[in-house]
Structures are given as structure tokens and as C-alpha cells.
């Protein structure tokens, strides 16, 4: 293959795989938005908290799997506590009130995690090296990271499970019902508190997965909270309520920002990767404000 084509494929694949990583973070937002109509500002802090807890346990000599299970338990407990302490007193309040509460939660989580585990950065290893896959580089001379493929596989599996869960099961349906209308959900016998507890626990689990993947890539440090910002354009494109949308949005953002960096970047003196995603999201807002897979709300007048 000509070198230009190989290069293009490498850039594209790298972008798509990075996009999957964004999608992982976006997924946490979508879950909570779907079930409570709340944009959970604290998702980034949850990612950071999960990764930091896991890595700190491992560094203290815990077995990998034990640390994983314990961290998961911590995230679930955190989700349940959030429901009990933050959300339950705010039932039937305006969504902006709930949103503000999640901003408060962000600072509490960020402070708490550094208070418990300290603020120094940590490296993280999951046993899968971030090196090009042998087979691809020998066969096609294309360099694609083994770890990226692994992360993509995990994200894909997670999305598939969650999509089925939301669409086909009783609890999933109850989650959607609660998001749609609190009063009506109560009247058909869906206990709101239960549902919120479940969804925050699941969001905690997703935050843990995202935290691990991003932790390997960037190290576990405070900057991890900012990956949430990259999830925003993904959500704008994919739609706040769609699980598959999070993946598609992630892929679009990942691919366009890498391609733009390589092929358009030189005209701007490089470094456009860090803001190009927002430009794409803005353009999308002009054309399709509800996102690709979002629900279009029509109000009767």
C-alpha cells in the first residue's frame, strides 16, 4: 500500500479508537440523563474518584481483581449515597436545581478523593501494553495500539449490554419511564428512589471502566476530571438520551479531530485537536439541535 494511504488509515483508526474512549465517558452522562433528566456535572469527578481509588488500592499491594471488586463496591455505595443525600431531598424540584446539586457534588468528590488518597499522579497498568499490534504492523504495515483495540472492545460490550438493558427489560423501561414523567411513574408503582439508586450505581460502574481506560492512557491525576469536557461535544452530536448515540458521537468526534489535526492543523500552526471537537459540535447544533439520536420534543400549543 502507498505510504499516504497507510498513514491515513492509521490516523483514522487512531481517531476512531480515541473516540471510543470519549464515548465511554459520555455513556455515564447519558445513563443519568435518561433516568432523571439531569445533566450530571459530577461525572468527570466520578471517573477520577474511581480511577484513583483503584490505583491507590493496587499500589498498597492489593490483588488486581480484589481491588477492582472493592472499587466497584465503593462506586455503587457512592451512587446509593448520592441518591439518598443529594437527590432524594430534591424530588419534584426543577431540573436546574438538580443540575446545581451535581456541581456541588463535583467539588465534594474532587476534594474527597484527594483528601483520602493524596494528590500525586499515579501510573496505571492493566497488563495490556500500549504498543502497536504485531499482526497488523507485519501484515499491513499499519500501527494501531493494542490497548486502544482492547478499550474499544470493552466499550463496545458495555454499550451493547446497556442498550439491551434499557430497551428490553423491566428495570430499563422503568428507568425511561421515570425520566419521562415522575408523577406518572409513581402512579404505576415505580419507586423513584429505587430507580435513581440503580442508575447512579450503574453510572458509578461506567465511571470506573472509563477511569481505568483513561488512567492507563493519561495516568491517574486530577486532569482526569477534564475528560468530561471532551464528552460534551460527543453528547451534543449523539444526543443526550441515546446510548448508541454516545458511541457514534464519540467515533465522529474522535475521527474528525484527529483527521483535522493532521490534514488541516498545519494551516493553523497545529494544535487544533484540542478545540476542533467543539467546532464540530457547534456546527451540529445549528443543523440538528437534538443530536443524531436525540428525542425531538414537540410541545402542543
Amino acid at each position: 500500500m502507498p505510504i499516504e494511504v497507510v498513514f491515513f488509515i492509521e490516523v483514522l483508526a487512531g481517531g476512531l479508537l480515541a473516540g471510543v474512549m470519549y464515548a465511554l465517558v459520555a455513556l455515564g452522562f447519558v445513563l443519568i440523563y435518561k433516568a432523571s433528566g439531569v445533566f450530571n456535572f459530577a461525572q468527570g469527578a466520578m471517573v477520577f474518584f474511581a480511577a484513583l481509588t483503584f490505583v491507590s488500592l493496587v499500589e498498597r499491594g492489593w490483588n488486581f481483581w480484589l481491588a477492582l471488586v472493592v472499587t466497584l463496591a465503593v462506586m455503587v455505595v457512592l451512587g446509593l449515597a448520592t441518591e439518598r443525600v443529594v437527590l432524594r431531598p430534591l424530588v419534584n424540584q426543577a431540573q436546574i436545581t438538580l443540575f446545581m446539586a451535581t456541581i456541588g457534588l463535583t467539588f465534594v468528590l474532587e476534594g474527597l478523593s484527594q483528601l483520602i488518597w493524596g494528590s500525586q499522579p499515579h501510573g496505571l497498568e492493566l497488563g495490556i501494553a500500549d504498543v502497536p499490534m504485531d499482526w497488523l504492523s507485519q501484515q499491513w504495515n499499519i500501527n494501531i495500539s493494542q490497548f486502544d483495540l482492547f478499550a474499544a472492545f470493552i466499550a463496545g460490550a458495555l454499550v451493547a449490554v446497556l442498550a439491551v438493558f434499557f430497551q428490553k427489560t423491566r428495570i430499563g423501561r422503568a428507568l425511561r419511564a421515570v425520566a419521562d414523567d415522575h408523577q406518572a411513574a409513581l402512579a404505576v408503582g415505580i419507586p423513584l428512589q429505587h430507580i435513581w439508586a440503580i442508575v447512579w450505581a450503574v453510572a458509578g460502574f461506567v465511571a470506573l471502566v472509563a477511569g481505568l481506560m483513561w488512567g492507563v492512557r493519561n495516568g491517574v491525576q486530577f486532569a482526569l476530571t477534564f475528560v468530561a469536557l471532551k464528552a460534551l461535544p460527543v453528547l451534543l452530536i449523539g444526543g443526550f438520551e441515546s446510548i448508541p448515540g454516545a458511541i457514534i458521537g464519540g467515533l465522529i468526534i474522535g475521527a474528525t479531530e484527529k483527521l483535522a489535526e493532521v490534514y488541516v492543523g498545519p494551516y493553523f500552526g497545529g494544535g487544533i485537536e484540542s478545540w476542533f471537537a467543539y467546532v464540530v459540535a457547534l456546527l451540529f447544533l445549528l443543523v440538528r439541535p437534538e443530536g443524531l439520536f436525540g428525542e425531538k420534543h414537540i410541545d402542543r400549543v
Partner: protein
Amino acid sequence: MILSVENVSLAFGGVKALREVSFDVKEHEIRAIIGPNGAGKSSMLNVLNGVYHPQQGTIRFQQKTFKDMDPHEAAALGIARTFQNIALFKGMTVLDNIMTGRNLKMHCGFLHQALWAGPARREELKHRRTVEEIIDFLEIQHIRRTPVGRLPYGLQKRVELARALAAEPKVLLLDEPMAGMNLEEKQDMCRFVLDVNDQFGTTIVLIEHDMGVVMDISDRVVVLDYGKKIADGTPDEVRNDQKVIDAYLGVTH
């Protein structure tokens, strides 16, 4: 008596919505609550399914006495309801909306569902069958897959009835089921209410503004005015009660 209300009083600050109201509902009957605007009809219904907690009085349901209930508790006991302003899940399909009504009948655990395991799938199918029967019963087969938000008002009301029925309730509370409907839709709704009462044996408590409709289909009628009960009896008794006539037509002082 399947349901009885004793001395219920409900106030919002200084506004007394209900004042020492008592009445009862026999098993299998259609019981109407009527009254002019602001008489406290909707408040009464909201007390029955636990949306409002009365300051005074008790509710007896199937030999058990409650001071008040919570909505999901009421639902678990077998009290289902519809709303005056339709509270459906607008973004979800008709089928999904009705399936939420089965929520309390389904018991598969979180893990089974998360993994979409065999028991969860079988349970889903079983309940889907029941829901399909209700869909046939209410003649809404053709809109099964339509998101509820896109349906006309009359059909939305019918879907809401279907969702309430899906819970196989012992008592069904209907808040102005015919409000805002044209004549044909009203007739359809009357037929469905009577059929539900007849075929499933469901006890029905309904609020209605339209006197004509109520008198035709209910067995007994409670009349409220300014939060107080002013009459209680068969449609004929109520129709000829001087207090009721005064309340509806107004009197000169």
C-alpha cells in the same frame, strides 16, 4: 366495602380542599364523584392514591386502615389511576407505556435483567402476552409502536386506561376520563369503562364533570361542593336533591 374514606380533611395552608368527607365504595361497583369546579374532586382522588396526605381522617382499603399512603404503595396494593391531564411517558411507545403498568407484577432481579438472561426474557414474554390482550380489548392494536406523544388526545386517554389496566388493579381511579373529548370519543370511553367493570370485575371510582355521562354509567354518586359532601346516593336520588341542584345551578341569596 372494598374502600372507604372516613372523615378526611385536607388543607393547603388556609385553603380547605376537603372537609370531613366520608363515603364508601362497594366491590364491583362504578362509583362517581361529581361536583362543580374546585369542589375537591381531584383532591379526593389524589388522597386515595397517596399523592396528597390528608391532615385528618383515614382510608380503609380491603380491611386495612391507612392514615395516608405513598403513590407506589397504593399501586402495590392494587389501586391504579389515570390523570386529568394525561400522565403518559410521551417519548415511549404505546407498548412500552402499557408494559410499565406491569412493573409491579414482574420480579426478575437486577442481575438477570442486566445480563438479559433466560428467566428475564421468559418473564418479559409472559407479560407481553397479557399486555397484548389489553391492547386488543381497548382496540389500539394499530398504534402499538407509535410514540405516545404523537397520538391524538382521545387515543392518549385510552392508552392511559390501558396502562392502568395492565396492573390488574382491584380499584381503578379515573380522573375525568371523558374531559375534552368529542361525543364519539366519549361514547367509546363509556363503553370501555363499562366493559372493564363487567369483564374484569374491576371496581371503578371516577370523577366527571359531565353530569349526563356520570348518571348513565355509575351505580352510586357522591356529590362534593366546596370540599364538603352534600349528597350521596343513586343517580336518580342525587339528580333530584335540592342541594345538588343549587350547587350546580347556583342559588340567589
